[in-house]
């Protein structure tokens, strides 16, 4: 079976939203800044709830923030 992993556009979306800082996003999402950093570096896949919360903060659908792609 082909391996997949979750990637995200959080970094891009932050800059499109008035250069929102990692700290601001973390506070709005109710997580630590380290978790945001880990997600941006694809070192952590968030729970479904946190993924929806982040999409809601940016005001975009979930699939615009996260995508499920085959591993290279």
């Amino acid at each position: 079976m082909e391996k997949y992993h979750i990637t995200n556009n959080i970094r891009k979306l932050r800059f499109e939203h008035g250069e929102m800082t990692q700290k601001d996003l973390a506070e709005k999402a109710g997580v630590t800044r380290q978790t945001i950093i880990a997600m941006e570096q694809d070192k952590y896949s968030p729970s479904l709830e946190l993924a929806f919360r982040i999409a809601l903060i940016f005001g975009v659908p979930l699939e615009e923030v996260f995508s499920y792609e085959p591993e290279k």
Partner: protein
Amino acid sequence: MSYKQKSVVISLASHILVLAYFSIKLNQFYKAGPLVPSQVFRLWGVIIVLMILVNIVGNIIANIVSSVIQMARTNEVEDFVEDERDKVIELKSARNAYIVSSICVALSMLAFVLGQPALVMFNLLILSGIVGGIFEDISQLVMYRKGF
């Protein structure tokens, strides 16, 4: 480094200190002659109390010091938030610790089966607890650094 990572480092340091103390004490017992049950069981109690005390005191001191440094550097209060990633890391590393501890416990039982005195088994049992704790801390640090 987040508040959680700092407390893991403190926990690792305290586990290593306790392991060092345990090893030194055990070495003294062996040099003094055959193991005495009262001494071994007293050491058990001391080790358990030490593990709790050193961890608590270490964490309190580390939190105070890091809060003061954070306040002086950035004029912001240190964030003591624990989120879902911290909890997942904690659970995964606890699973790793249980695996290591279980293997060590099985080995201590094996030592008893192979004819070693019961006191050796008891020493290996407490050692398995400390080794499991160290492995848990290292697992957490690796997962914080490399992701999972």
